[in-house]
């Protein structure tokens, strides 16, 4: 069935639309209304903790699972009811799922063999796919002879050989060690650009999501809390959950005292600060929650026009950054990070915490 494309879909070249997915397993509702439009050639990441339903979304797109409600629309065709083999979508499984009784060549060429391609053509395509993932000449190896990283590459080669419209990747780097993961992030990104295939990528690693994606959908409890570019999600988180999950932002609560042109000023127990309103309409007296990134927090000794009083609790030197843990007067703990190995402050010092209003943003507090 051909679905009439909306004007936006034509303009933005939407390749895949998820419309209001719902899914329950028994009594637990895993997905409660998932909507997403993916543009052609886009790298979209579903980011969330384990159990938030991201794999379920992927399995519904692949056709391995039926949604209770909602539609999957691929290039204008409703494929909600189509079996997995009739969708031009391929998956890189979390466990790779390389067929253990077939060698690498047979694994990678499987999709073409199903289509009934000629042997010579399959051989040629397999060689090309393997060279794409830098595994030239691996055709005769068996999956159990490969290292984790190699198996991962084979899984990718197998999934892209049939030139799917959309490639689904379910935590493909989850089983690799840190160094290999960093390297594969770069390679995957390069691969995506070379092939021009739309990627839908699942991860629980916010760093990975920020590094690789064109857009990130932050998922929690079966809904998307925010969908946006890495910059949007990082700089302007919509909810306190997104702020915490992506980059572990500091969360400060208070009451609005005044509102002006995109900014809100709030009073907390430790003082008065101003932040961007994040598109939320506040009135004086409303509860306000703001998010401030660690690297945007400055520690000063004397109170200037705006700032919050705090006590230095702890100092750590982690990953090239000095992390200072402070406690505000209302008991909230915040962390400031800056370059350098040490600062003049010692635990117990009473200091002031400040940040420019542009670097803080009001967020919604969802249950």
């Amino acid at each position, binding site marked *: 069935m051909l679905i009439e494309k909306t004007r936006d879909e034509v303009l933005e070249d939407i390749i895949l639309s998820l419309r209001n997915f719902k899914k329950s397993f028994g009594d637990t509702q895993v997905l409660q209304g998932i909507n997403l439009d993916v543009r052609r050639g886009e790298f979209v990441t579903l980011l969330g903790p384990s159990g938030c339903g991201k794999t379920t979304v992927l399995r519904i797109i692949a*056709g391995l699972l039926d949604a209770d409600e909602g539609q999957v629309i691929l290039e204008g065709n409703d494929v909600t009811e189509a079996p997995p083999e009739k969708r031009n979508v391929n998956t890189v499984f979390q466990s790779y*799922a390389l067929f253990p009784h077939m060698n690498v060549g047979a694994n990678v060429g499987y999709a073409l063999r199903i289509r009934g391609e000629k042997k010579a053509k399959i051989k040629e395509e397999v060689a090309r796919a393997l060279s794409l993932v830098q595994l030239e000449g691996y055709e005769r190896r068996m999956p159990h002879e490969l290292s984790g990283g190699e198996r991962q590459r084979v899984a990718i080669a197998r999934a892209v050989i049939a030139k799917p419209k959309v490639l689904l990747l379910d935590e493909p780097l989850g*089983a690799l060690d840190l160094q290999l993961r960093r390297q594969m992030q770069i390679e995957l990104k390069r691969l995506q650009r070379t092939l021009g295939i739309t990627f839908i990528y699942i991860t629980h690693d916010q760093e990975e999501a920020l590094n690789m994606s064109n857009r990130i959908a932050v998922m929690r409890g079966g809904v998307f809390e925010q969908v946006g570019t890495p910059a949007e999600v990082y700089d302007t988180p919509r909810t306190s959950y997104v702020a915490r999950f992506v980059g572990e932002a500091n969360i400060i609560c208070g009451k609005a005292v005044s509102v002006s042109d995109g900014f809100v000023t709030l009073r907390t127990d430790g003082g008065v600060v101003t932040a961007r309103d994040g598109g939320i309409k506040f009135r004086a007296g409303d509860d306000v929650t703001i998010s401030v990134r660690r690297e945007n927090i400055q520690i000063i000794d004397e109170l200037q026009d705006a700032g919050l009083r705090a006590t230095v609790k702890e100092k750590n030197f982690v990953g090239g950054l000095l992390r200072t843990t402070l406690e505000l007067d209302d008991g909230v703990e915040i962390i400031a990070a800056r370059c350098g190995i040490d600062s003049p402050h010692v635990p117990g010092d009473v200091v002031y915490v400040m940040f420019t209003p542009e670097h803080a943003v009001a967020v919604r507090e969802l249950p």
Partner: protein
Amino acid sequence: MSNKVKSSKRKRSRRSTFPTLYLAILTVLTYVPIAVVVVYSFNESKISSVWSGLSLRWYKELFRDPDMFRALLMSVLLGVSSCLIAAVIATLAAIGLPRAKLPGRKLVEYLSSLPIIIPEIVLGMVFLVYFSLLNLPFGMTTLIIAHTSFCIPYIYMQVKARLIGLDESYYEAARDLGASSIRAFFDITLPLIMPAVISGMFLSFAMSFDDVIISVFVTGVSTDTLPIKVYTQLKTSTTPKINALCTLMLVVTVFCYVMSYVFSRIGRRNMKTQKEREHKEAIRKA
């Protein structure tokens, strides 16, 4: 302190006594009689109880006996055909049942292994009555039906155990890459469970090959199998030929058990290496 040492010592000695005792009982009750039969099958003498020298005389006589040869043929034909039929049915059941959305699925699964528990004599009687009711002529057909029915559980259980350990994502990956459900079954699932199917087939061939009780009830005039032959011959006389025959049957049965074990190991080994690797990787990551 000294108490502890003592008790652990006592424990250790008890631990080693018990298996030794068990092995001794097992040997006296089972393996010695078997060994006697095997040894005496090479006895030259016509009287079983007298040893008069090593010889293959009884084996030669056995192979010269057209009746015996016919019985052997019957047994092999029966065993092979019933375990092939049972393999198809049991594999389909093991794959289909867990996915079926029918009420009482659990009960059906449970009933599948019942023929192992039902006393053979009861099963034999039941088949006898049932086949007479159906007016089926007793012979190869009735034998195959009866043997198939008790072979199914052995294969079913092996295949089911293998399927439980099999990662569903292999099948899903095949579907994802464009295979229909039937194609994915033949390309992926079947080869992966094949060792279990073969293992179960060897086991059920062994069961069929030495079955007397059920066979006696449903056999026809000219379809006596080897075990029936042994049984009826024993009633008349115990010639040393029977020793030779028993030894040969023993060899076949043991071979089947060993093959069954080997194939069940093949399946498990593949899975194990994969699990171990994942485990190792997890450790390395941590």
